[in-house]
C-alpha cells in the first residue's frame, strides 16, 4: 500500500518537473506570505549512497517576493576535492511564470571559501546571482554533488532560514536494500515513508508542505530545537579510504580513537625529558597536568589549518613540538602527548563550540555534530576539561565557548558522552564598588573596583597586554557613558584558578560629569552598567530561552558637592520573576548618595507567555538605569 502511494507521488512530481509547473507568483497561498521574502515553491533533495560515494541531486524552485529575498536566490554551492559538483543548470521566470532566461555552470563565479583566519582549508564555492530586474521572480535550478565518502550524510533542513516559506519540499534517501541506516526525525510533521525504487533501491522519503516563514525572535532556543530536520547516518561507511561501522556513540568514539587519533603522540626524547623535569617532585596528578598545560600554553599558538583525513585527524604531536603551532585538534593531541609522557591519562573530546550551548544528541550518534575539540582529564570525582587553543585561559576553565554541554570523549575503550561544567547565575558575577566625588563644577573623581568571575571573567580580557595608552582608549569605550573620562591609575589582576577572578581597579576623573542648569546640577545615577530595553514580539511562537545566567552588582557612593541637596524621590525598584530579579535603591545620608543595583538573570527555558514579562522587566530596568539625579542649591 505504502509503495503505491509513493509511486504516485513520484509520477506527479515527474510530470511537474517536465516544465509544466506554473510558477506564477499569484498562485502562492496567501497564508504563506506573512514575514516571507521568498517562498520555496518546490524542492526535491535526493540522496543516494552507492559504492563508497554519496550522491546528491538537488532541485529547487524559489519565488523571490522582494529585495530581501535576493540573498535566498543567490545560489551558493560549496565543494572541494572530495565533494565534486556536476551539472548546475537553471532558469529564471518572471512574476507570471514566463521563462526569461536560462543559466548553467559557466555563469557561476568560482571562489575560495576558506575562512580568512585559516592558514589552509580545502573549501571552494561556486555562486551565481540570478536576476531579472523586477519582483517577484522565480528561479528554478538543479545540480548534482558527488561526495567521496559515506560517513557524513547532509541533514535535510526544509526551512533553514528566516523569511523563507515553503510550499512543498521533499527528501528521499536511497540505498541498497541490505544497507542499514539510522535516522532521526526532528520536529517533522509526518513520519518517513519507506519504499523501493524501480531499480531496486530501498527509499526513505519525507515531505513537508505549507511551512510559514519563520521570524527572528529574540531569546529563542537554539534553532535545532524548533525547526524541522532529518538526520541520517549509515551503519557501514567509508571515509578517506578508511572503512568503519558504528551505531552508537561508543562505537563512533572507538573508531575515532583507533583510526584518527591513536599513534600520533610520539614526542622527541628531549621533550619527554623536559616533561619529566617539569613534573619532577609533583605527585598530585592535577598539579602535574596544570604544570604541563601551562608549558603547552607558553610554547604554542593557535593557527587554524584544516588538513589531514578530511580535517578530522590531528597533526602529529612531534610536528607541534617542532613548529609550536597547531589547530584545536593538533594542540589537544599535543597536550595529550605531554600528559602521556608524564603518565597521565586524558581524553580527546569532540564538542560544538560557541556561545550557544549545543550538545551532542544523546540518542543519535553521528560524526558531524562537533566543530571543535577540547581535552578531558578523567580524574575521579574531579573530571576536568581543558581548552587547548588559548595562551591565556586558566587551567580547567572553559569560559562561555564550551561550557554546559554534552561532548564526545574518544577513549581507548570507546566513546563516552560527558557533560562539561555549567557556570551558574550565582557564579558568573560582575561586582563593582565605586567611591565618587562630584564638585560644584560638575567634575567627577574617585576610585572604582570591579571583580569579574565565572563566564564574566573574560569581559575585560582585552585590556591584558595592552599598553597604558591603548588601555585608556579601551576604557573610554567600555565606560562610554562617562564623557571626558581620564584614567589616572589603572590596574588589572587575574587570579587564574579553575573558577577564575579578574580584578580591575581604576582611579578616574571626568569634567562636566554633572551638568549645571538653572542653579541645578544633573547627573546620570548609573553611568557604569546600563541595561537597554528589549524588543517586544507580537504573536510570539517560541518559548523564552536564556542561554546563560549572570549576576551584576554595582554600588556607587557619591559624595555630593557642598551646598547642594538632591531633589528627588528616592529610587526604589524591586522586581522578581522566575527568569531573574532586579533591585535598585538610593539612600541619602549627610552629603552622600548611595546607589545600589543588583540584577540576576537565571538561565533556562520559560513559556512563551513569559516573554511579555521579560519585556516589562527589562523596560523597568532600563528606566531605573537611565535615572538622572537633580541636585538643587540649599
Amino acid at each position: 500500500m505504502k509503495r503505491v502511494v509513493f509511486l504516485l507521488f513520484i509520477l506527479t512530481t515527474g510530470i511537474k518537473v517536465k516544465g509544466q509547473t506554473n510558477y506564477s507568483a499569484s498562485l502562492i497561498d496567501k497564508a504563506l506570505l506573512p514575514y516571507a521574502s521568498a517562498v520555496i515553491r518546490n524542492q526535491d533533495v535526493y540522496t543516494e549512497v552507492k559504492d563508497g560515494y554519496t550522491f546528491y541531486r538537488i532541485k529547487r524552485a524559489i519565488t523571490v517576493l522582494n529585495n530581501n529575498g535576493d540573498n535566498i536566490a543567490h545560489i551558493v554551492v560549496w565543494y572541494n576535492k572530495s565533494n565534486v559538483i556536476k551539472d548546475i543548470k537553471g532558469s529564471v521566470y518572471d512574476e507570471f511564470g514566463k521563462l526569461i532566461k536560462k543559466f548553467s555552470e559557466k555563469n557561476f563565479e568560482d571562489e575560495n571559501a576558506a575562512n580568512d583566519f585559516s592558514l589552509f582549508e580545502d573549501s571552494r564555492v561556486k555562486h551565481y546571482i540570478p536576476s531579472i530586474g523586477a519582483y517577484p521572480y522565480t528561479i528554478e535550478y538543479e545540480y548534482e554533488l558527488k561526495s567521496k565518502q559515506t560517513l557524513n550524510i547532509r541533514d535535510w533542513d526544509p526551512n533553514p532560514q528566516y523569511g523563507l516559506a515553503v510550499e512543498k519540499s521533499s527528501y528521499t534517501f536511497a540505498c541498497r536494500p541490505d544497507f542499514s541506516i539510522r535516522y532521526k526525525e526532528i520536529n517533522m510533521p509526518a513520519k518517513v515513508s519507506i519504499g523501493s525504487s524501480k531499480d531496486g533501491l530501498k527509499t526513505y522519503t519525507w515531505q513537508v508542505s505549507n511551512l510559514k516563514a519563520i521570524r527572528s525572535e529574540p531569546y529563542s532556543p537554539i534553532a535545532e530545537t524548533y525547526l524541522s530536520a532529518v538526520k541520517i547516518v549509515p551503519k557501514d561507511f567509508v571515509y578517506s579510504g578508511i572503512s568503519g561501522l558504528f551505531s552508537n556513540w561508543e562505537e563512533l568514539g572507538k573508531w575515532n580513537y583507533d583510526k584518527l587519533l591513536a599513534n600520533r603522540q610520539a614526542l622527541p626524547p628531549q621533550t619527554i625529558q623536559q616533561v619529566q623535569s617539569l613534573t619532577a617532585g609533583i605527585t598530585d596528578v592535577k598539579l602535574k597536568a596544570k604544570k604541563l598545560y601551562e608549558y603547552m600554553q607558553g610554547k604554542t599558538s593557535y593557527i587554524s589549518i584544516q588538513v589531514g583525513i578530511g580535517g578530522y585527524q590531528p597533526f602529529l604531536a612531534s610536528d607541534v613540538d617542532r613548529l609550536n603551532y597547531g589547530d584545536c585538534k593538533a594542540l589537544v593531541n599535543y597536550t595529550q602527548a605531554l600528559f602521556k609522557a608524564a603518565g597521565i591519562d586524558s581524553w580527546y573530546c569532540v564538542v560544538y563550540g560557541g556561545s550557544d550551548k549545543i550538545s551532542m544528541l544523546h540518542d543519535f550518534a553521528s560524526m558531524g555534530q562537533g566543530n571543535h575539540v577540547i581535552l578531558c582529564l578523567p580524574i575521579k570525582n574531579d573530571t576536568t576539561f581543558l581548552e587547548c587553543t588559548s595562551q591565556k585561559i586558566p587551567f580547567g576553565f572553559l569560559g562561555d565557548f564550551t561550557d554546559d554541554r554534552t561532548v564526545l570523549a574518544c577513549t581507548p575503550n570507546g566513546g563516552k558522552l560527558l557533560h562539561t561544567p555549567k557556570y551558574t547565575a550565582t557564579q558568573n558575577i560582575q561586582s563593582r564598588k565605586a567611591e565618587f566625588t562630584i564638585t560644584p563644577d560638575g567634575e567627577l573623581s574617585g576610585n572604582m573596583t570591579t571583580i569579574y568571575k565565572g563566564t564574566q571573567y573574560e569581559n575585560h580580557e582585552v585590556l591584558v597586554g595592552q599598553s597604558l595608552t591603548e588601555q585608556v582608549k579601551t576604557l573610554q569605550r567600555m565606560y562610554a557613558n562617562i564623557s571626558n573620562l581620564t584614567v589616572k591609575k589603572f590596574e588589572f589582576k587575574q587570579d587564574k584558578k579553575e573558577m577564575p577572578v579578574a580584578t580591575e581597579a581604576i582611579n578616574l576623573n571626568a569634567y562636566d560629569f554633572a551638568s549645571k542648569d538653572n542653579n541645578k546640577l544633573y547627573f546620570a545615577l548609573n553611568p557604569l552598567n546600563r541595561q537597554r530595553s528589549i524588543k517586544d514580539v507580537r504573536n510570539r511562537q517560541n518559548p523564552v530561552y536564556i542561554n546563560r545566567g549572570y549576576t551584576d552588582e554595582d554600588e556607587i557612593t557619591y559624595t555630593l558637592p557642598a551646598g547642594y541637596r538632591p531633589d528627588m524621590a528616592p529610587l526604589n525598584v524591586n522586581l522578581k520573576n522566575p527568569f531573574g530579579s532586579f533591585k535598585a535603591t538610593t539612600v541619602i545620608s549627610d552629603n552622600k548618595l548611595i546607589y545600589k543595583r543588583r540584577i540576576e538573570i537565571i538561565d533556562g527555558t520559560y513559556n512563551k507567555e513569559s516573554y511579555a514579562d521579560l519585556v516589562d522587566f527589562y523596560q523597568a530596568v532600563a528606566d531605573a538605569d537611565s535615572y538622572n539625579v537633580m541636585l538643587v542649591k540649599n
Partner: protein
Amino acid sequence: MNKLLLNVLIFISFSTICKAQDSTFGDYTIEEMQQKSYPADTSAHAFVLKEFGSTRLDASDNGIKIYFKYHVKIKILDSKAFDKGTVAILYYDSDNTHNEITDIRGQTTYTDDNGGIHVAELDKSKIFRTTENKYWKQVKFALPNIRSGCIIEYSYTKVIDNFYMFPDWQFQDDIPKVYSEYRVNIPAFWVYNVMIRGPLKLTSSKSEVEHDCFTSRGAKCDCSKLTYTMANIPALIEEDYMTAPKNFLSAIYFNLEYWTNPYTGVKNKVTKEWKDIDYNLKHAEYFGSQIKKDLLKNYIAPVIAGKTSDMEKAVAVYSYIQKNIKWNNFTSVSSEGVRKALDTHAGNVGDINIALVAALNSAGIKTEAVLLSTRNNGIVNKLYPVENDFNYVIAKANIGTETYLLDATDPMLPFGMLPLKCLNDQGRVMSLDKPSYWIDLVATQKKALTSNLDLTLQPNGKLKGTFTTYSNGYEAYEKRKTIKTFNSVDEYVENLDEKLGKVKILKSEILNLDSLSLPLGEIYDVEIDVFGSLNHDRFSFNPVLFDRVIANPFKLAERTYPVDWGMPSSKRYILKMHLPAGYVIESAPQAVSIGLPNKGGQFITDFAGEGDNFVYSNVIQFNKSLYSPEEYLYLKELYNKIIASEKADIVFSKKK
C-alpha cells in the same frame, strides 16, 4: 631547462645587487634579541627592525618581467602581535597576467626557556597556495616557534609579467619601523613617474646610473638605480570617522609614463597627459564605444515615450537602469557591454553606470561619464594622470544649466544623490568630445531629520498625540533602505512598535516611500506611558523622548586626522505638550545656544511655556562635511554640551 637556467641567473644577479645594502638573511644581534620594548613607541606590540624591497625590470624568455624582492625582519614583543607571524601574500593572476611568488624563505629566531638562542626555519611543505577567484591567488604561511621576544624574518620574490604593474612601496604600516628601504632598477627603455605621498620625510634618496645593465637580444641600455630610505617610521593608528588610511600613509608610487620597445625602438606613450587618456577611453571598446554607438536606442525609446521635458526623461531613464541592472558588488570603471548588462539584468559598477550614460545620451540628454576613486580606495593624485587610481564610474547629466551626478547601482538613491562612498574629493569628467576635467564630488544634500511631537497628558497618566518625522536627503535615503529591509510597511511599523517599548503606535502613515526625491514622512498616532499614573503631585519629565545623546562619540584628547562625515547634517526636535488644567510648570531646562567656530555648527534648545502648554525645541546642526583636527576639541565640547543639556528635566506640579 631554459627556465631553470634563467632562475639561477636571476638569483645571481639579485644576490650581487643585494649585497650592497640589504643585510644577509638571518643575522641578528644579542641586543635585538634582548629588546623588551620599542623606545620610540612603548605601546607597540611589534616593530620592524629592517625592511628591504627591490624591484628590477628584466627580460626573460617570455617577455619583459618585473622581479620584486621583499625581505623583512620583525621583532615580536608580545602575544598581541603573534598574528604578524602568519603571512598572507595576495597576488594578481588572471587569464591575461600571470604573476607568481617564488623563493619564499622564512625563519624565527627565538630565545628558549633556558636562554639559548635558536633558529627555526619555515618548512616549505607548510606553505599553502590557493586560488581566491578568477583574478587573485594567495600564498599563506605561518612562521614556526613564535613566542614573545622572537624575531621573525621572511623574504620572497614576486614575478610580475606586466611592466605596467610596478610595485609601490608602503613605508608606513600599523606597526612602527626602524628602517625601511626600497630600491628600484629601471632600464632606460622604461620611464616611470614617481610619486611620494604622506606626511613623513624620506631619510635619504639616491639616484645612480648603472651602465649597460640591460641587455636582451642585442638591445642594450643603462639603468637608473634609485634608492629611497626612511628611518624611525611611526605606526599609523586609525581613528573613528576618518577616510581611507591610504590618504595619510607615507608611501611611494610608480606609474609607467612611456616605454621604448627595446627590439624595435618604437616609443609607446602611456600616460603623459590627460589628452592621451581621453583619447584611449574614447576609443576603448569597454568605455567610449559603449557610449558613442547609441546601442541602447531600442531599450530606451519605450522608457521615454510620452515624456516631454528633459528632466522627466532623465528621471525615467535613471529609474529604468536602477531597476533593471542589479549590481553584483564588483566595482569597475569599464563595461563588458551595456546591452549585455541590460539583457542579463546584472553587472558591475562600470556596466551599470556606463549603461546609464549611454541610455541618457540615447534619450537626448547630454551626459558624460565621471571617473572617481571611492573613499576606501583613497584620494586620486592630481600631479599627473593615473588611470588605475580610479575604481568607480558615475554619470554626469547636463539638463538645462544644471548638472546632476548619478549612480544607478542602488535602486534606493534619488536622482542626483551620490552614495557616501563616492563623496571623495574630485572625479574626472570624461567628455567624449572635449578635454576631460575635474569636478568636485561633494554632497548636494544634507542629512536632515525633523521630528515633531504633539502630546496631551491624559487623566490616566499617559501621553497621547502624534509623532511626525520628516527625513530629508541622506537621512531619507537611509530610512528608506531600513524600511525596505522589511517585506512590507506594516512589518516595518510592527517592528518599530515592538522596539519602542513604552510607546504604542495606534495608527501609522508613511509618506513618499517610493517618491525618492521627496522627504520621507512618518506620521504616527502614539500613546506613551511615561508616568505610570497621575497619582503624584509633582512630575519630572525629560523632554527628549527619543535618541537622547548619552555618550560622547569623541573621546580622544588630541586628534591626528580630520573628522570626515561626508555631508552636513541636522536634527530638529520639537515637543508640544498640553497639560490638563490645574498644572503649573515649576522649572524648565535652561535655553542653550552654542556654536562651532566658523559657523561650523550649532546646538540650540529653547523652552516656552504658556498656561497649560509648553513647547521644547532642540536643534543639532553640523554645517560642514569635514572638520580639521584643530576643530576636533570643539566638536567634542559641543557633544558635552548636548549630553549635559539633554539630562535636564522639566518639572511640573499640581496647583496648590
